[in-house]
């Protein structure tokens, strides 16, 4: 009995630790006064200021633009790559897998500065283009790594059966292989999108003046002190995430849900 109460209290404390900072941001996003010491009255002015803040709105636009392009390109290239790697001999496969793991295991900051060094060596102007290339680069391995296991599970006979029944190789690829590995492709795409939206370190080093994503904007604002608009932004982002996750939770079945949640842990 005591044991049970102890467990409950401990669980509650951990969840309070996790949520207290977020709840406080949300509460203070409605606070009249700019200081966070005390709550002086209810207001929505920070929300209207947020939507009129051109810097934040621009970085929101860049975040989404980069994430959409990076996840589309890396999903396409990564899926092709996974099919190719799957059909390689053991030695080639091993070399490519090691290269694939390199950016996954390497510290973000090393990937970031190495890309920056490359872009400057190639005389490319740091900006939107270099940021998109960098995002594709760090997303690609995750797509390859989520599609490959699905290809391994594939029964090779189904593809051969399709060929025997008169399908051309490309038709069989589209109608047999792609649908079978679709769950892997989708989780790779989602993973790329979220990684790209959340990225700070790599964007910070590979973008130039004028182009910043949400993370960079928050970083530079936070260094200059605290702005109540950020509280409003946090609230909106938190609600978006919450609603999306609850929807996904409803739609997917239990098993695949646990899979995708775990994959998010990078």
């Amino acid at each position, binding site marked *: 009995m005591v044991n049970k109460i102890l467990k409950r209290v401990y669980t509650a404390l951990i969840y309070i630790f996790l949520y207290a900072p977020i709840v406080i941001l949300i509460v203070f996003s409605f606070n009249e006064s700019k200081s966070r010491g005390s709550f002086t009255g209810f207001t929505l002015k920070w929300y209207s200021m947020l939507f009129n803040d051109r810097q934040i709105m621009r970085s929101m636009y860049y975040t989404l633009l980069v994430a959409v392009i990076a996840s589309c390109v890396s999903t396409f290239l990564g899926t092709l790559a996974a099919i190719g790697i799957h059909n*390689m001999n053991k030695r080639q496969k091993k070399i*490519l897998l090691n290269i694939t793991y390199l950016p996954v295991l*390497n510290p*973000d900051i090393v990937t970031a500065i190495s890309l920056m060094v490359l872009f400057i060596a190639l005389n490319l102007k740091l900006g939107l283009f270099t940021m998109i290339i960098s995002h594709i680069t760090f997303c690609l391995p995750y797509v390859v790594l989520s599609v490959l296991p699905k290809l391994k599970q594939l029964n090779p006979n189904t593809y051969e059966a399709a060929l025997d029944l008169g399908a051309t190789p490309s038709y069989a690829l589209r109608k047999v292989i792609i649908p079978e590995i679709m769950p892997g492709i989708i989780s790779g795409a989602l993973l790329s999108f979220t990684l790209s939206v959340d990225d700070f370190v790599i964007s910070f080093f590979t973008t130039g003046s004028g182009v910043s994503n949400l993370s960079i904007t928050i970083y530079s604002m936070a260094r200059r002190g605290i702005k109540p608009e950020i509280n409003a932004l946090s609230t909106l982002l938190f609600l978006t995430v919450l609603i999306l996750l609850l929807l996904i939770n409803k739609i997917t079945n239990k098993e695949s849900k646990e899979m995708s949640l775990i*994959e998010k842990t990078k």
Partner: protein
Amino acid sequence: MKRKNYAYPYVFWMTIFVVLPLFLVLVYSLTFKNGLKAGITLSNFTRFFEPIYLNVLLRSINLALISTIICLLLGYPIAYIISRTNIKHRNTLILLFLIPMWMNFLLRTYAWMTLLEKNGLINKLLTSLGLSPLNIMYTNGAVVLGMVYNFLPFMVLPIYTVLIKIDKSLIEAANDLGANKFKTFLKVTLPLSLPGVISGITMVFMPSVTTFVISRLLGGGQFTLIGNLIEQQFINVGDWNFGSAISIVMMLIILISMSIMNRFDKDKEGVNLW
């Protein structure tokens, strides 16, 4: 199936944007340029072993270790408790653990700035209780707190995943054979959950060692970690050669410790999570 050539664009991309950049960093770390003179040198690496820089490395490892240990001590019990609740509640509890992780990493760190700063909520609370305010912001403690807060889920999830996969009949067998609850945990559950613990440790330690955001925002200027040192060399100082040397050292530390951890983790459980 002859579809090997599907991987060629990928090979091309990874060669140019992963292998070549790392090679360039290596070249920078091994060369120097002083006015017109340029050449090959190891001095960038030997410079890193000067006490002032070595201390930065030691401080980074030290803070990351402390954070990892705290995450393990806080995370294992909660993972265990969640894994022992019934399925319906279990999924909700794990989902609740994940939601903060989907928030932007910088916003989560920023949230702590609000709480910890001099006129922040914690100090307001303390003064209203008649206690003297604390100076938490811009200390090592604040940095560790930021790391624990951001990386705790990385410890809990792999441990939880391993715990729910443990065959219940093994635990029943231990009980039948006369082991009490504590002994069952020590001799059955704990050893079986070690792969999860190991990948949890890796997943918390690695980002903690290499972070420069948490130390920048919560640690202020004076608590430089190795990540900040690299950032400084590239952004402020402009000494790319030295910055590259530090990056190479950091990369080696991470890759070597990953391979050591991998050796412990025999059935590769959860390694691909990171």
